[in-house]
């Protein structure tokens, strides 16, 4: 494997995790968090985030033990050659379908708000193709691109957060903790998937310069995500009230639309979010596609990961068209996260961790 130059620093790991998680989910976040616990949705976001940090810790423990084997390699060591590959196949489908889902939601949203007459395929295909081009180049160019866009994204997030703070009534968040533990537990199950994407850590471990620092970097990334999520949720509840926020298809977009800059010298500020959001989605898809190619390479025992991207390109496009209407598609999305998603980001890391306690450490760098 030609990976002598393919090493990323721990800061880059943080950026990778941050930008992979930040994707289409942020638009529907306030509504999806309110499903079980209504106005306590922001507390749920914190709880789910902390749980994710726990999962990241487990992933890093496993990764530190087998730093050079990669995900499929580790699975093979832990469960034997045959079962290792079997266990890795759902992950392949998970990355494929997750990338498709992001692509489709991107297309639907752009068509609704921006380009109503442009055919859907001309919105989705260029995005996938451009993502494939970047993902083909390998991990280092990917994270370098992520690094380059980070300041823009952070700056725009701050601007949007400030804009959205007009006309808000923070008493809408009261009463705090009005729901029992059971509904919080139910909520965390689905809230966890707002953070889906950090599982790329499983993939990138062989490329990390200092594997023992990976946990700190990704923990900080998730803490930053919790902050962003809580701000988005709190602001949209404060602006709309929980009930109205739940009734929107894309509450975050509606929140920015409903914010007017005092003085009204500029209207329709949501253009900024829409433009920025393309970056969110692009970075997520790139990193999911990259993970997909690495898993596929290891499963099929091929040498070059990038060849698989060209093979999977049509599948990504075709699977992204599953679901006739947007409501249908959302249902399939839920199905994906509660089955393959639960397996990849929750069940598998825990099983791997438990089994790895009984195995000898893998090859060191």
């Amino acid at each position, binding site marked *: 494997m030609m990976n002598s130059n393919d090493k990323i620093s721990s800061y880059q790991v943080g950026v990778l995790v941050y930008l992979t998680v930040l994707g289409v989910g942020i638009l529907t976040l306030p509504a999806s968090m309110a499903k079980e616990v209504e106005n306590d949705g922001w507390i749920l976001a914190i709880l789910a985030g902390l749980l994710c940090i726990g999962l990241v810790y487990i992933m890093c423990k496993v990764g530190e033990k087998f730093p050079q084997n990669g995900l499929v390699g580790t699975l093979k060591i832990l469960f034997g050659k045959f079962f290792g590959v079997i266990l890795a196949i759902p992950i392949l489908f998970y990355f494929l379908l997750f990338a498709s889902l992001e692509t489709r939601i991107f297309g639907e949203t752009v068509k609704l708000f*921006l*380009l109503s*007459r442009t055919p859907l395929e001309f919105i989705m295909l260029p995005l996938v193709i451009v993502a494939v081009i970047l993902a083909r180049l390998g991990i280092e160019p990917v994270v370098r691109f992520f690094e380059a866009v980070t300041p823009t994204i952070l700056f725009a997030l701050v601007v949007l957060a400030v804009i959205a703070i007009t006309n808000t009534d923070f*008493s809408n968040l009261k009463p705090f903790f009005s729901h029992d533990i059971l509904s919080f537990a139910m909520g965390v199950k689905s809230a966890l998937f707002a953070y889906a994407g950090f599982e790329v850590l499983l993939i990138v471990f062989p490329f990390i310069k200092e594997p023992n620092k990976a946990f700190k970097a990704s923990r900080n990334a998730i803490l930053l995500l919790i902050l962003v999520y809580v701000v988005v949720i709190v602001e949209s509840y404060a602006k*709309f009230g929980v009930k109205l926020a739940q009734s929107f298809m894309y509450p975050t977009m509606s929140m920015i639309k*409903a914010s007017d800059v005092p003085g009204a010298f500029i209207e329709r500020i949501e253009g900024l979010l829409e433009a920025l959001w393309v970056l969110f989605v692009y970075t997520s898809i790139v990193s999911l596609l990259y993970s997909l190619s690495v898993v596929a390479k290891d499963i099929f025992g091929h040498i070059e990961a990038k060849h698989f991207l060209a093979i999977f390109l049509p599948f990504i496009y075709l699977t992204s068209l599953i679901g006739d209407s947007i409501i249908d598609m959302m249902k399939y999305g839920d199905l994906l996260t509660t089955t393959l998603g639960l397996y990849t980001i929750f069940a598998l890391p825990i099983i791997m961790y438990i089994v790895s306690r009984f195995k000898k450490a893998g090859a060191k760098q």
Partner: protein
Amino acid sequence: MKKFLAIILIISSLFLTGCWDKIEIDERAFVGGIYVDIIEDGKSKNGEIKPFYEQDMKNRLKVIFTIANPKAIAGGGEEGFVTVEAIADSIPDAIRKIGVRLNRTPFFAHSKVLVMSENVLKDEKVFKELIDYVDREPDLNAQVNVMMLDGRIEELVKIKPKLDIYLVTYIQGVFNNAQNLSYIVPIKLMQLTAQLNAGQKAHIPIITVKEDEIEIKGIALIKDNKLYKTVDEKYLRAFQFLNSQLKGGRKFINYNGTSVSYFIQDNYRDLYVKDDNGKLKFILKAELEGYIENNIFSKEALEKKDLDKMEEILSESFKLELMETIKYFQENVGADYLGLEDYTRKNYNKVYKKFKDNWDEAFKEAEFEVEAQAFIRRIGSKK
């Protein structure tokens, strides 16, 4: 060779671009105001599936759009807008009818007002259809001012504003002015849908047309998605205060035979909710801050005891105003539009849970203890 190929590729990309959604700004008709009235009381039955051509639809509504006329606005012409109207079954139907007559595409992203006639609010079905449309349309601005018109919409769009050439900016200006003086409770589309989503109650300001001006006239209360009652404007100040929406404005008192104007600059509300043996009890503490604008000319300077006397009258009169308004809502309206349910739910959740199934009944029976204190902080540029 490679370089050459790359250059060809880059240049060819310039010719391979396309755009489906290009609409030039001069091809758009910027709809500023949407005005809806019911002209025919038609109930369409849901029944068998038919081809259902456009002419099969009922013509229930009269829809008028006021469209900004940029040329006239820039050139300082007489009229900054044009009106187009259609008799239609719904707003999309009206857009269709207007669209085939107009040489531009109606564009709603910069709409500012939505005016509904009284009949629209009285007809639950029409109102619900209308609200769903404006809620669903992704272009429509959530900051649209919603209001009810007591009168005919044709008369409203005929108004030639005096200081403005565009009707919509005129209506907005009146609203802003009146809002600062608490003579109106304006409501944005977003707040209206929030209220309708949270409970079944909402309120909408009422305007009427008087010669060449619009006039503000109280608020319309909405219950179960239709017009429930209208509230006289004399209750507006206390209504806004109880909803903690009071912006400011004047309150007059009779002081030694002079109508002294007290300008409210700040106000505070403290509300305690108790469960008093199965009955709701509210303890309201109100505070006003402001200055006086007029008195009667005298060579003597105003003294502390004069101010104390004025404050006393103010406090007492505001207290009575609050009590009367509360009583009006308890007895005449019979439903809690004062934001008390929301307040109790947020701050006294335990009490709320006891009464939440039958809140309006509990509100009618509730006991109120009101205290008011007005402070005169400034007296103008004369002693």
